[in-house]
């Protein structure tokens, strides 16, 4: 927005987070939270990525719910893999070509990949648009690529319209 209040929404969220963190909704804590809300965005502005506009907020909520469910399933699957026989594991590095070019959205995608079934994002090549993923147990690399693209990249692309 302007110099002293670059992102009012972030400021409000930070102030609210502070109140939740101290679990004390008094005036003093509110003032302290408001101070953080003003200072933090000003200090971090040089590092902040420009977020593309949300095209479908409702779809984002549904998408996050689906990711939450995947995370719970991922935990159970990975727990099974850890306790099962090691010989059955087929780890692999897989290069996933990305359609998304926006750094902010790629960051979200990479984080989701790290949180979900047996995959950790290991590196990103922004020039070539490739995400390097390490899978704990990969049957068919192409299948993994297709799943990441279909399940996570496509909805993100639609939600942020990029």
């Amino acid at each position, binding site marked *: 927005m302007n110099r002293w209040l670059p992102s009012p929404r972030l400021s409000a969220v930070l102030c609210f987070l502070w109140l939740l963190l101290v*679990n004390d909704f008094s005036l003093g804590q509110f003032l302290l939270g408001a101070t953080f809300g003003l200072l933090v965005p000003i200090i971090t502005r040089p590092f902040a990525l420009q977020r593309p506009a949300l095209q479908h907020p409702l779809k984002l909520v549904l998408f996050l719910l689906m990711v939450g469910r995947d995370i719970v399933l*991922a935990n159970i699957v*990975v727990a099974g893999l850890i306790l099962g026989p090691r010989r059955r594991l087929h780890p*692999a*590095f*897989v290069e996933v070509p990305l359609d998304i070019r926006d750094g902010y959205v790629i960051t979200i995608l990479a984080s989701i990949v*790290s949180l979900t079934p047996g995959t*950790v*994002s*290991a590196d990103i090549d922004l020039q070539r648009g490739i995400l390097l993923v390490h899978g704990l147990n990969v049957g068919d690399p192409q299948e993994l690529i297709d799943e990441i693209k279909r399940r996570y990249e496509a909805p993100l692309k639609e939600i942020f319209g990029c």
Partner: protein
Amino acid sequence: MAVWIEGLVAVLVLLGAAFTLIASIGLVRMRDFYTRLHGPTKASTLGVGSIMLASLLFFSVDSGSLSVHEVLITVFLFLTAPVSAHLLAKAGMHGGEKLASGTRGKPWDQ
């Protein structure tokens, strides 16, 4: 406190402890640096998540007012776990960590 809430809290705490234990077992059992990364980033998120849920439930019912610290801890954990896993993987590739035999694909040069 109602018995069923106590039971639910107990189940959640045990579930959380079990997943955290499995994550630690993964650190010992897996054969190379990269496969070891998987345990702590995943099994631990659900482990910590369950314990936080148990804590939220217990203290909300016990004190009669909603306790929200725990939600924040969970959110922060979910924001930071992927970032630390990513950086660890990058550091591993930079340091030329050995791959478990049978690993397909190659890590990138850093």
